[in-house]
């Protein structure tokens, strides 16, 4: 690809770095892992960039490629780690100055405990995508999305309650 494509791609990533960082942070269990995931996601986005059609929104394209990459990475791992995601990040100065609070910690930890595909579903739901769009982006059926959402709601209710009790 030409240098123009490279310049455009770098600008695109910089404009949407919140998406890339948020997704990698929710799937990673350490800062090192987050950096590795980010490199994998950037590589996937760069590979997919020539096929990006401007008829869809940039953010939709990024969510689709990034989430499928992260799900695929975690599936390849023999033991999917359903442990606490990066929590110390909320203790460092950067996050404290950015106005972190208990709700953010609850959100990150509650989502962090979900399975990779369930995480993707809840992230896309929070982004405002409907079941049909989510199904298309994650290559699963609409019924599957609906079932997963119901299960996730029950699981999150329990996790959020436990976490909120811990913070009291």
């Amino acid at each position, binding site marked *: 690809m030409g240098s123009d494509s*490279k310049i455009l791609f770098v600008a695109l990533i*910089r404009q949407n770095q919140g998406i890339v960082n948020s997704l990698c942070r929710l799937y990673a269990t350490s800062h090192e892992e987050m950096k590795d995931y980010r490199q994998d996601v*950037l590589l996937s986005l*760069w590979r997919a960039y020539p096929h990006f059609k401007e008829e869809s929104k940039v953010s939709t394209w990024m969510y689709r490629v990034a989430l499928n990459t992260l799900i695929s990475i975690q599936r390849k791992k023999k033991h999917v780690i359903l442990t606490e995601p990066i929590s110390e990040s909320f203790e460092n100065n*950067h996050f404290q100055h950015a106005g972190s609070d208990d*709700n953010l910690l609850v959100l990150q930890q509650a989502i962090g405990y979900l399975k990779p595909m369930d995480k993707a579903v809840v992230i896309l739901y929070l982004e405002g995508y409907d079941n049909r769009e989510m199904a298309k982006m994650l290559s699963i059926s609409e019924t599957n999305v609906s079932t997963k959402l119901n299960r996730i709601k029950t699981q999150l*209710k329990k996790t959020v309650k436990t976490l909120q009790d811990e913070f009291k």
Partner: protein
Amino acid sequence: MNLNRLKPSWDQFKAINGLMDIDESEILSCMESQDNSSIKMFSKRVVQNIFVYSMILALGGGCSF
């Protein structure tokens, strides 16, 4: 649980993560690694093809009826 309750926190989470700059060098290194792997893959294919055609020619030449 009403997931919509988490939406403001999600927006805040994304905004905070948007403040973490991804270095241009990090993006460029990922792009270059892809370019390098494409070149390696191309070279590997060329070598493989030369080997396969050499074998076909050698075997074909040895089996003249």
